[in-house]
């Protein structure tokens, strides 16, 4: 799979079309993957990076087909292993801009171990986790994010596994960037991808999307046009947590407990509300537990969308590079020195 012309070197000279490969996406009609792919292709021209310096890495699953549709370097690897592959690539080649496309099964089930360890190591990867709370490619089995009680082909009596809370897991694993959006968020999605790309470290963007075939209504309770205003809160750095169709509701922190308040009825002003600080890990931990509807129950708290947490921390590859530079401060080792070693001896 190759593209015709990639000699353009200035990032601003690209359009989204330059990042489309010759392969037609084979996702189901109506799948959110199409929209996410489009937003990624629209994001890349803004980053000022030459096309040949992008790499897209994935594992297995519907979402993991994404690299085939990008006109960049890419690897479609094996199930669950996108993150170690991306880590190896980024460690060997810190100059590349490395993206990972993964899903709830790929990242959180078979790749769960890699997920937590990559988060704590913090290589500079941009990870898009497409969460549809179901296994699509294998036709409808429950995933680690499927709600308790849901009937699927492998849970005919209802799921009994407690689901993962992706945000809590990511923050608890030492992740440095967690954001969340809907597949239908359009330009907002692009703004998050841009922030994710600029974040030095592993940025994790969880995207809520239904599976039109096996779990279409996964997020309808709060993603539909009617429900969204009342059941989600879009976070903005330094701004109070306000939501509701009339922007009349807010979140107030009482001790460690977030509570919903009605600004008018309770005579409160914006200054009484929780102000979002994406660098505050304690607040991020509380945000992550908003709307923890493990069985699809309705929550009194809205679901936070946007950047829940962002922290500056040295990346894995930078820390390793620094160690190598220190070791080479007095010059890199030669092949002859390598072969000779430190404990050689001369027999006369």
């Amino acid at each position: 799979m190759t593209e015709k012309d990639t000699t353009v070197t200035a990032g601003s000279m690209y359009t989204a079309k330059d990042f489309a490969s010759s392969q037609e996406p084979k996702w189901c009609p109506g799948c959110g993957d199409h929209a996410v792919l489009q937003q990624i292709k629209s994001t890349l021209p803004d980053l000022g990076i030459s096309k040949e310096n992008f790499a897209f890495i994935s594992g297995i699953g519907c979402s993991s087909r994404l690299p085939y549709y990008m006109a960049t370097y890419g690897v479609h690897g094996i199930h669950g292993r996108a993150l170690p592959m991306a880590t190896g690539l980024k460690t060997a080649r810190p100059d590349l801009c490395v993206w990972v496309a993964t899903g709830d099964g790929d990242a959180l089930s078979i790749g769960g171990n890699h997920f937590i360890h990559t988060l704590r190591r913090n290589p500079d990867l941009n990870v898009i986790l497409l969460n549809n709370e179901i296994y699509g490619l294998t036709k409808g089995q429950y995933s680690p994010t499927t709600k308790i009680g849901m009937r699927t082909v492998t849970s005919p009596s209802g799921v009994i596994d407690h689901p993962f809370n992706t945000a809590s897991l990511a923050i608890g694993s030492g992740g440095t960037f967690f954001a969340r959006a809907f597949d239908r968020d359009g330009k907002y999605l692009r703004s998050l991808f841009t922030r994710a790309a600029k974040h030095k470290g592993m940025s994790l963007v969880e995207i809520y999307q239904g599976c039109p075939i096996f779990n279409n209504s996964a997020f309808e309770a709060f993603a539909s046009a009617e429900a969204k205003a009342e059941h989600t809160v879009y976070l903005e750095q330094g701004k109070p947590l306000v939501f509701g169709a009339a922007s009349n509701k807010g979140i107030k922190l009482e001790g460690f407990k977030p509570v919903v308040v009605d600004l008018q009825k309770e005579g409160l002003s914006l200054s009484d509300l929780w102000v979002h600080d994406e660098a505050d890990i304690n607040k991020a931990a509380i945000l992550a537990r908003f709307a923890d509807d493990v069985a699809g129950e309705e929550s009194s708290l809205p679901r936070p969308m946007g950047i829940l947490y962002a922290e500056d921390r040295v990346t894995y590859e930078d820390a390793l590079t620094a160690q190598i530079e220190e070791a080479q401060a007095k010059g890199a080792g030669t092949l002859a020195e390598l072969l000779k070693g430190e404990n050689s001896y001369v027999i006369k």
Partner: protein
Amino acid sequence: MTDTTTTSRKGNITSKASVSVLFAGDSGDGMQLTGTQFANTVAVRGSELNTFPNFPSEIRAPAGTISGVSGFQLQFGSKPVYTPGAKFDVMIAMNSAALKANIKDLHRGGIIIAGTEGFDEKNLKLAGYPAGVNPLEDGSLSNYIVFKVPVLQLTREALKESGLSSREIDRCKNMFVLGLLYWLYNLTVEGTAETLRAKFKKNPQMAEANIKAVEAGYNFGDETEIFANLGRFDVAPQKQHGLYRRVTGNEASAIALAAAAKKAGLELFLGSYPITPATEILQNLAKMKKWGVKTFQAEDEIAGIVSSIGASFGGALAATNTSGPGLALKTEALGLAVIMEIPLVIVNVQRGGPSTGLPTKPEQSDLFMALYGRHGDAPMPVIAASSPVDCFYTTYEAARIALEHMTPVLCLTDGYLALSSEPWEVESPDNLAEIKPRIQPARKPEDPPYLPYKRDENLVRSWAIPGTPGLEHRIGGLEKQNETGNVSHDPDNHALMTKLRAEKVNRIADSIPLQAIDNGPEKGDLLVLGWGSSYGAIKTAVEQALEQGLSVAHAHLRYIHPFPKNLKTILGNYKKIVIPENNNGQLVHVIRDTFLIEPVGYSKVTGLPFNEMEILDKITDLLKEL
């Protein structure tokens, strides 16, 4: 070999062609350090040398018991030595468990130096001797020359003014034994003194106490009457002048990977997960940052190999190292590397299996897994190292094949090679084979589109490295269309790609050396065909058989897949083929299957390497049948 005895002021000195020594004691007795120091001393003097440590898998097994015994065996000689010795001539037994565990491997008439404090009532009980039985007192050792030395008491006396605590003093007792051995083998203590001063740089008091213990041991030999009848021994150095270093197999493999990267003009990336007995490769490479080596200690074996595949996609010389259970975990990723057709070196340091098996014991356990252990038809070159030093050359060759043929390569070593050591005459960079990676140059706009799976005359595709303009492409685990690399489920295409992948690996046989006969006639009655770490035992046994006038030859395989092109002819030149293996018979199947002949399998699956006596006996028996 003839021993000659001369008389000097300090008693008789008998000249020996080679000597095998076992240092054995409790895990906490410092036997590994003692053996290593002794090995360094004889190596620097110019002896031929082969060492092998033998220790329990537990870090601190119950003190005083058989399972807690730690041993370090070495053979040094005035002629090449290829094994640590089938049996030892001298045994240091720091306690009764060490004696009990190892006495069966001491030559009849061999020397035992027993630390008497390790034979008190408590230790005898822990070693499992019946109440009232002490092997040092009951005459059961009458076939050996036994020296009872109160090592602990003598060390305490020597160090009473050292200023060390009594616990610290007691820990120096191994150095006393070392000094005594130096006296017995006509060696000097200076080298060790220098090493100890460097080792305890921040604690000169400790350094001086250890040196004093070595000297005390040496002086004890000189002054005591107990060795008067035995005298001393000398093993004359024989090495040619030159620059040497002593390497274990794992050290050699690590150096080889870094050297291959340098020679190929690439960076080395090792993705790895600690596993016995392969871990030292990761540890050694982690120290090589001065050479730009990047090591990644992954969360598991799978991440170890997959990170390496990512690094290889990025243009590094990528490697991973492991042992049996880890190789099992890596098999899915090996299949990915096969279908991606990217360079990757897997160093598998075999150990006893199945499952956790015998983690610290060597076994040639994984030949079948290396050849066949993947999903689908997934051929991969397999090569095997035959000695600690050969771990360098074989691992280097694995890297060369991987980079020049765009394929993962499985390099087999084992726990015996990994931990054994021998002197290595330091290679000059110019003597190392050139390595030419198949890197695809940047594409100009007027050039035709890049075809990732277009092949050269050896069926090798090119390596398009991210960052190169015009070569953007996607590859992965799904079957590819020939040349374009696009995903394809076409039936004929899959058949074609399956055959191309196999033929690509087969054609490596065109560029590897022909199989050589290591020793013995080109045609004859019996060929001993070996692979891997049995080299030393077979080499020694065949040498002895040839001295007896037997019609036997030795060939040792480095290339197992593909085989050297002349192997079939060689196998036809002998009436009988015997294949010794430290497994239940694996190469013997492969040879039978490939060449439709009936070789004789000779298995040893005890978790112990072959020794030369076993091979020689087998040779003798087989020739009688002819």
